[in-house]
């Protein structure tokens, strides 16, 4: 997604800030309901708690997991002129700071990933504290997640398991084709939430479908959990130990509240745990898991999924035949086809890549697939905000060729953002020392991943 649109979403939130100040009071039917659930979670109450239990908690008192997240409409403030200019700049500044903190050198990342997505399909997913409902929002975000995940992990595979009626339910088999995975969750009626979830059954099922994987690939489980209980046939801690043994990284996104076992699952396997605050935060938590995880040193966690062995693999890059080419038998289905790919070693025609050639066994991948992850290996160094122009500043941005403003902008003098926001609107590449505008800075680092000046 281009960053600009994300900014737009923030601006949108900001626009409604005046109405949402009294959000808790006005929209009590909905928001209060969510608080009630959180109250329940804290108390580890299993039954349907009474309304006043949640109400009893002071509204001002933030829960531990709430403290770490600030709602975007709380942070956006209009300036004296009622304009959002400062707010927008502040958001840009935060993005820039985040980028400066990121390691600029190439870090080792796990590229060949296997992920089991565990969706809670219990009746708790019918709750409407997330709009339109937990269930519908989860399906929508899952779709977006799958598309984005395959975009960044082209050699990865995703499988889907549902949790409902106390059982684990295989919804989509492990597949490297995004269309297959999307199809598995396309039928909303087939996934209708019902009954109680079972973490243990679902995790064991996911574990089973990942047992055959080669050692150099990662195994991950992402649990979307709306319930506050789990009904398990045995001891869930045995399952946790098995996950640690199998080097499976378990991450949990909880829609309701923190459950001890969920946090333990994530912490002990090197995964991430988060409790959803609102719709945007839900997406943020989920999409944190999209980029290939950096390989942390194995010492950080004894049971992390980090110390799998690396390997060198021989792969072939095929030639694609257009559908207008003469018909030929494909080796995978023995069908007469024009369209297809030619194995570079034995010239056999296969229908789709990536695959292993049925004739010579060579792994055939399309090289653009591999190249999608290269921007992780060679990131562009963050640009530095320019505070003083030299003797002869370049009149135009080196990227888009738009002219720089003649004189410094007034808002740029804000001391809170002065370290990362240039009052001149200039950002300089430390390598080629060319100046870029703010738009190009964001575009180069978030989308392009190539410095136009260094080329």
């Amino acid at each position, binding site marked *: 997604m281009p960053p600009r649109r994300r900014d737009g979403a923030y601006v949108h939130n900001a626009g409604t800030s005046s109405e949402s100040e009294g959000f808790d009071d006005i929209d009590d039917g909905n928001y209060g309901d969510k608080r009630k659930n959180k109250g329940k979670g804290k108390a580890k109450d299993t039954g349907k708690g009474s309304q006043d239990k949640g109400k009893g908690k002071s509204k001002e008192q933030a829960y531990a997991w709430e403290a770490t997240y600030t709602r975007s409409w709380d942070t956006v403030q209009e300036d004296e002129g009622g304009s959002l200019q400062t707010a927008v700049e502040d958001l840009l500044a935060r993005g820039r700071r985040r980028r400066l903190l990121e390691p600029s050198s190439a870090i080792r990342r796990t590229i060949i990933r296997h992920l089991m997505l565990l969706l809670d399909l219990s009746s708790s997913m019918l709750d409407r504290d997330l709009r339109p409902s937990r269930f519908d929002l989860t399906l929508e975000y899952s779709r977006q997640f799958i598309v984005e995940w395959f975009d960044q992990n082209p050699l990865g595979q995703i499988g889907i398991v549902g949790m409902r009626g106390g059982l684990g339910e295989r919804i989509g088999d492990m597949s490297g084709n995004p269309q297959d995975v999307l199809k598995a969750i396309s039928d909303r009626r087939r996934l209708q939430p019902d009954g109680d979830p079972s973490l243990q059954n679902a995790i064991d099922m996911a574990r089973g479908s990942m047992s055959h994987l080669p050692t150099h690939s990662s195994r991950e489980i992402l649990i979307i959990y709306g319930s506050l209980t789990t009904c398990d046939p045995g001891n869930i801690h045995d399952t946790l130990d098995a996950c640690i043994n199998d080097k499976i990284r378990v991450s949990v996104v909880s829609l309701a509240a923190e459950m001890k076992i969920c946090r333990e699952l994530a912490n002990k396997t090197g995964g991430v745990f988060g409790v959803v605050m609102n719709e945007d935060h839900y997406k943020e938590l989920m999409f944190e898991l999209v980029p290939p995880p950096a390989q942390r040193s194995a010492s950080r966690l004894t049971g992390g999924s980090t110390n799998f062995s690396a390997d060198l693999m021989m792969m072939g890059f095929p030639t694609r035949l257009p559908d207008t080419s003469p018909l030929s038998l494909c080796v995978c289905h023995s069908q007469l086809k024009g369209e297809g790919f030619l194995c570079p*070693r034995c010239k056999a025609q296969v229908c789709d890549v990536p695959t292993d050639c049925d004739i010579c066994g060579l792994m055939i991948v399309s090289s653009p697939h591999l190249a999608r992850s290269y921007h992780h290996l060679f990131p562009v160094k963050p640009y530095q905000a320019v505070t003083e122009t030299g003797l002869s500043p370049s009149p135009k941005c080196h990227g888009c060729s738009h002219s720089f403003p003649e004189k410094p902008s007034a808002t740029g003098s804000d001391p809170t953002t002065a370290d990362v926001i240039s009052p001149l609107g200039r950002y300089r590449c430390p390598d080629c020392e060319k100046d870029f505008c703010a738009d190009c800075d964001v575009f180069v680092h978030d989308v392009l991943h190539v410095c*136009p000046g260094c080329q």
Partner: protein
Amino acid sequence: METTVSDSPPEHLSLIIDLSPTQWHLSSLDTNPQPLSLRLFISQVLVFLNAHLASRHDNTIAVLVALPGKNVMIYSSSDTIEESDHQSPLDESNTYQPFRAMNSAVVQRIDEELGAQEHGETEAPIGLVGALTKALCHINRLTHPTASANPSIAVPTPPNPRILIFSVSPDLSTAYIPLMNSIFSAQKLKVAIDVCKLYGEDTVFLQQAAHLTGGLYVNPERRDALLQYLAMCFLPSTAIRRVLGMPTQDHVDFRAACFCHKNIIDIGYICSVCLSIFCSPVPVCSTCRTKFPIKTLQRLMLNRPSPLSNGHQRTASPAPQR
């Protein structure tokens, strides 16, 4: 022009011209079946650009040139052209002023850039990928107008962008990764990259660029009829192309460049951690410093195809036997 096109966005065309002096010299030699000189080419491109601008009043262009070790944007529709000295020659009294201004600006800047080239022994690599990244930055600014701009001014409909590359140089395998990153950004911006290969052999990576972004890759059979190709293939927008019969790309070659020698290879050795590509089995990945097991190396060395069947040797015969 009012009713039929007003609901569709205007078209923006970013032109990238490869101005390698060596390649253009070779292209103009009489030993070619149809010699094409830079002068002749530029004059046809100007007609094409005028046609693009004339087909709709709010169509825009940007022209970038790639030179050895350098790239510049020499013209953009948003530039204001200062009316320069050469006023009122009689033969220009019948021309449409904006076209004349653009034509002379483009020609003048190309002359300047070529004149500023140093005549060294060897030519530095062409800055084609740099030009592509700049074109993408420019398009990003056009299609995503700054949010902090004054909201009271109505933002005009962002144009429908595409890029057309005129290539005369061979593949630049040194810029493989930046080029691929540019292609993926073009996909994200929904920019089609068209390629017109004017001289020399097909380039694998530009073929991939056109294929992956939904653009056209055209290698004109008759270079003397270039304007015809330009008008028929590259003038229609991507939306109109769907209903026209467009030349389809023949085989697309998905070969890649190895990280170690920048050779273009069809069978490579891939690091499972970072997916770096090597042309021969290596004990340690040079990108991520991963050490590979000895066993794997021994196995791969045994199965290794003979070095001759790999790499450059196949470039001459892209069409495999079927």
